[in-house]
């Protein structure tokens, strides 16, 4: 329990902050170095010993890390156009746009559905099994059909991909919203009852704020899911501008330029982490909770 009585002095707090930040950066460098060492060490050992299990190691299957980084600054083999990094940044932005719109659509729909399911038990009985089984639909297989169908309604292809992304996004939000709304503290509900508060007031002033930590932990999962949805929505739909298109493309020339695919995946990974961090930042602003209660 932090009491205000013993407020630490500002300079002491700043020193502690600097120290913990330094420790974190040190840890990050250490982890990256260990990962790099692992990769290169594994490569070196497997190639030297000629081991082929679980897979053959060579410059195609496991390119050098520095080669992957160097590939980012290489011009395309045709000799014209931007270096790979610039192309990838464009693709990342394109996919990020799809994912962001899909995330917004999916999170909104997922939240509203969660609220509806918690408010009407009959609806919950009728729909919840399908909400769960909806996620077993292989969205990759449905994606081209969705893009073609929405295309016939004159919807832009990137928006169709956003719709596909929203399909993967809504599920965690619905489930956690429902769980959060149903796990409201019993006495907090009694308090609202003692005020003769209406259903809307209870929802708005108690249940939803109390469910926010649950909702945010779902949004963190959904942030990544929206990017997964965007990438696997682009891949089979012949959309070339995004990361999914790049992955399909570079996959075809993998034996020639394996670094390109790795570099693309690196960007995808960074995009995923960026989305996640963005949600975490919004969470710390929105959810003012006791530090130990933050899951």
């Amino acid at each position, binding site marked *: *329990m*932090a*009491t*205000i009585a013993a407020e630490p002095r500002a300079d002491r707090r700043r020193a502690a902050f600097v120290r913990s930040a330094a420790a974190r950066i040190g840890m990050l460098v250490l982890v990256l170095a260990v990962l790099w060492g692992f990769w290169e060490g594994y490569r070196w050992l497997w190639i030297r010993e000629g081991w082929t299990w679980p897979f053959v190691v060579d410059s195609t299957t496991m390119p050098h890390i520095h080669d992957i980084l160097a590939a980012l600054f290489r011009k395309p083999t045709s000799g014209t156009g931007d270096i790979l990094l610039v192309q990838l940044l464009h693709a990342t932005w394109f996919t990020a746009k799809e994912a962001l719109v899909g995330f917004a659509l999916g999170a909104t729909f997922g939240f509203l559905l969660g609220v509806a399911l918690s408010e009407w038990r009959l609806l919950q009985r009728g729909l919840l099994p399908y909400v769960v089984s909806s996620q077993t639909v292989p969205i990759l297989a449905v994606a081209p059909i969705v893009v073609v169908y929405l295309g016939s309604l004159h919807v832009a292809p990137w928006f169709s991909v956003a719709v596909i992304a929203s399909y993967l996004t809504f599920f965690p939000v619905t489930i956690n919203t429902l769980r959060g709304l149903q796990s409201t*503290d019993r*006495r*907090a509900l*009694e*308090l*609202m*009852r*003692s*005020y*003769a*508060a209406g259903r809307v*007031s209870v929802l708005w*002033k*108690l249940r939803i*704020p*109390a469910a*926010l930590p649950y909702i945010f932990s779902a949004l963190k999962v959904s942030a990544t899911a929206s990017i997964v949805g965007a990438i696997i929505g682009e891949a089979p739909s012949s959309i070339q501008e995004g990361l999914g298109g790049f992955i399909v493309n570079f996959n075809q020339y993998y034996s020639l330029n394996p670094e390109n695919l790795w570099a693309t995946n690196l960007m995808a990974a960074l995009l995923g982490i960026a989305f996640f961090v963005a949600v975490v930042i919004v969470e710390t602003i929105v*959810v*003012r*909770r*006791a530090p130990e*209660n933050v899951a």
Partner: protein
Amino acid sequence: MSVVEIKDVGKTFEGGTTALEGIELAIGEREFVSLIGPSGCGKSTLLRIVGDLIRPTAGTVRVNGKPAPQARADRDYGIVFQDAVLYDWRTVARNISLPLELARWNRRRRTGRVQEMLRLVELGGFESHYPWQLSGGMQQRVSIARALSFDPALLLMDEPFGALDEMTRERMNLELLRIWEASGSTIVFVTHSIAEAVFLSTRVVVMSPRPGRISDVIEIDLQQPRTAATREEPRFFELVTRVREALHLGSDLDRKLAAPAAEAQP
């Protein structure tokens, strides 16, 4: 007119447990009534029935002359639980103003009242703190301020100081008496502590379990206003002893334990 009027109230839970049976009690204006009894005597259940948080299976409850559900709808009482039940995501000030928001007070009136309440519970300057930044005693004071904020005629308190340490608890007791004086409300107070019940109340209602019944009602004729010195008066100890004996008489187990000892005496 009685503020609370309980007539032949009984409560049997689903599954057959009888929590309360034949409860008769009338509580007048400006009274401070404590409900005391061992675990399972139904004192919290009775408090919740008065607040219409649960419905009795027999009998009637009237608050301010109205049926309990109507009184709840009219926001005639405030309630304080054992835990402060503050909303983590609201500041102290916004926690206190919660019932006012629900009663659709405008912002200016709310701010004025919250300031008044913060002064009453001596938490001025803490309005923008979050609950988790306060100590247990301070949290409970916020909870009392919230219960009193809309000026209810009746204050229901369910072991409000049960989770606090003895010293904080005694200070909170004095504080509560001051607030009771200042606000002029009627208080129904559930507690485990005999000393607390005697020190605070004008009347102590002793309950016994299985099924929950009222086994005794003891008038507390200690002088008002009470101070820390009241706890050292001989009359205080007499009354504590009376309540303790009433509690033990109400308990089957104690009756059995006491019986052979009583026979042995000449």
